[in-house]
């Protein structure tokens, strides 16, 4: 557990951080978010003493961080910076081995830990271990940065805009990878971001900051449903119903009882359509290749013509996809149903627009809250979700 009590950082006249108190429970992710210059980085860096607080108390598992030497403290805290900061002269393996080496681990133990971590962050150890940072793409470098922070299995992880400098698609994948890893390793994480959707997706709690002060510290749902102030309300934006979908995964609402065939379109007739709208076409390994629309089939069109061939990379979601992303994918493709595949393209099920609608209306909270927002005097919301 990380606990900040009345922590203040003053630079001359400016109060970069103003009496912040918050607690990050063990194994949870807290996200620091807020407009540029509000003190997120300063707060984060005070936890591992890269910045010394002017006043206040910072404890990790009940121990005052000021009572430990900075070097020793930092070796126990994983740290990921926005610009990744991999050492360009060291290989990927050597980069990851940094803290284990500082801790004096044995060579074999380091080697096996490096392999393990590369696999955890989704990089093939044999292929990437001996590469140099300049041979990596932005997304790969970020993954290595995360692996390096996890190297000595620190209980606490500090991440400053870890997925900031990559394209949206890569970011989505990195977020999914982070969720998966966090489910396994259960670190106590403080993550800084500019992106409200990212905060809602990854955070167990969100700390919204404004000019050095903590505006609200709550679970994402609470932040969406009960904004403590107009600032919070405006910051989160108008599309909170949509934002809410960012908390729910496709896995939670998908149907798995879909009809699929590996025999191509030859044997498909109306009888094959047992209830569902589609018969999915897969290859021998179960990888999605397309589908046949049963309504078109029922209208008398031959199966070959009623079929659609697709690339699963473009026309399907994964179980980790948020409903928000799935919805936008549906709108983009013009589909009311979206196939769900695993990361190798094997068909797992489908998610329907109706299921998403039900999720949205299932919580009435947001409806009352929209009205509340107007009471708070919000003008016509601009719907801006991201702040730069």
């Amino acid at each position, binding site marked *: 557990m990380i606990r900040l009590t009345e922590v203040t950082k003053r630079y001359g006249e400016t109060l970069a951080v103003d009496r912040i108190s918050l607690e990050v429970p063990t194994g949870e992710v807290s996200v620091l978010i807020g407009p540029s210059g509000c003190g997120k980085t300063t707060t984060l860096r005070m936890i591992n003493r890269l910045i010394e607080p002017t006043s206040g108390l910072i404890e990790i598992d009940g121990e005052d961080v000021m009572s430990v030497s900075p070097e020793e403290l930092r070796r126990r805290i994983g740290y990921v910076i926005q610009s990744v*900061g991999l050492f360009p002269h060291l290989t990927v393996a050597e980069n990851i081995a940094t803290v284990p080496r500082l801790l004096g681990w044995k060579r074999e133990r380091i080697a096996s830990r490096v392999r393990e971590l590369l696999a955890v962050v989704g990089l093939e150890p044999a292929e990437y271990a001996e590469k140099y940072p*300049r041979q990596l793409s932005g997304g790969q470098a970020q993954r290595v940065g995360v692996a390096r922070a996890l190297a000595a299995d620190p209980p606490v992880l500090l991440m400053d805009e870890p997925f900031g400098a990559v394209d949206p698609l890569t970011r989505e994948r990195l977020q999914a990878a982070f969720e998966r890893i966090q489910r396994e390793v259960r670190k106590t994480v403080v993550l800084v971001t500019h992106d409200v959707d990212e905060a809602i997706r990854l955070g167990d709690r969100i700390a919204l900051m404004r000019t050095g002060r903590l505006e609200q510290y709550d679970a994402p749902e609470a932040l969406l449903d009960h904004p403590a102030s107009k600032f919070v309300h405006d910051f989160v934006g108008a599309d909170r119903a949509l934002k809410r979908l960012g908390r729910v995964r496709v896995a939670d609402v998908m149907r798995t009882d879909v009809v699929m065939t590996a025999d191509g379109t030859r044997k498909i007739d109306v009888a094959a359509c047992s209830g569902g709208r589609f018969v999915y076409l897969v290859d021998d390994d179960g990888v999605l290749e397309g589908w046949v629309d049963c309504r078109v089939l029922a209208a008398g069109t031959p199966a070959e013509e009623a079929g659609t061939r697709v690339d699963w990379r473009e026309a399907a979601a994964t179980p980790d996809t948020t409903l928000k992303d799935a919805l936008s994918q549906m709108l983009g493709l013009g589909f009311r149903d979206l196939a769900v595949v695993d990361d190798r393209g094997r068909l797992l099920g489908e998610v329907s627009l109706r299921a998403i609608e039900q999720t949205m209306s299932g919580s009435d909270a947001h409806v009352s809250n929209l009205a509340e927002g107007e009471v708070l005097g919000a003008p016509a919301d601009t719907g801006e979700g991201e702040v730069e």
Partner: protein
Amino acid sequence: MRNEGHPIPAEATSADRSHGARVDRVAGFGAAVALSGCVALPFVEFRENRIASGVGEAVTAAGWLGWLACALLAAALVAAFLPHAIRARALPAVAAVSTAVVVAALGSAATTLQEGQPAFARVSIGPGAWVAIVGIAVVWFAAWRASADVRTRWLAVALAVAGVGAAALWGGVPELSLAKEYAAQSRRFWPLVGQHLTLAGAGIGFGALIGIPLGVVASRSRIARQVGIGVVAIIQTIPSMAMLGLLIAPLAALGVRAIGTTPAIIALTLYALLPIVRNTFVGLAGVDPAALDAGRGMGMGRARLFLGVEVPLALPLVLEGIRAAAVLVIGIAAVTAFIGAGGLGVLVFQGWGQQADDLTLLGAVPMVVLAVAADALMRGLGRVVVSPGIREEAAA
């Protein structure tokens, strides 16, 4: 998805860059210069004795070897226009063979022209041959670039060394004036080379010993940077002769004689400082702040951060500074012969004094060789000690 899994291609090597070109302009230029020098200018000069003025003799004086040399240079010119796949082998081969043949042609011309002449008659290398040698050096440079693989390169070097060696042993090379000059000076020559190396080596060594820490201090403190680099830059602007003069007074005050090895080494050290201090500073200042922040954030102490991150990242520039200093100091070490420090400058100045051009050359040519060797050595060292992750030429 798409931009993952595809490593960013490593920086293209210089060899890659010449791939695309249809014509190797550099090789073509070198070959053309060499060929025209060979054909249009006197290849050798005949002198009645070592200080008499020379009479130019065309390349034909070398007989069939002269014709062969011209033919090879023409072949080099043609090779520059061949497709890259052929060029990559043809250029090193033709560079190696033409080097050996030009040397052999010089020997042959010397032997022929001195036949029946008095013993003190001399044949020295003429302007045409010098131009040819410079042109061939350019072809070598292009060949080095065009041939990406190490084996071809060293095969070419071995071929050239063997050819020149053979020409020196069995051709008429010892008949050349330069060789005769060497024979006359052979007892002094190697000690002078040794002195030259000692002077330059000491200058570079002390320069690095003082300059690298100065560069480190400059990267830590603004005042040190402004004062240190300012002073070192002013030193650099002092002409070398003036420097030796300026050192007299302070050395006298310290009780050191202003003549001999000590003041020479001091002067050379001062000259070596600027490139070393400046490059050390620039190298350290250029270290990615994100890497430092990450290192600090992972619990590296100051010493580890310096030795484990800053030094390896600054190393390429530091080595480059030492390389520049080495080339500079090897040249300036010639001047210190004036204050009795010895070195190859002794031969140069004596040659001038006696108007014996070939004696001057006997001092100057080895200096060029030393400078080129020091340059190659430092580059080779860089290839060994600099991490492949930050090397200029990607180790693909």
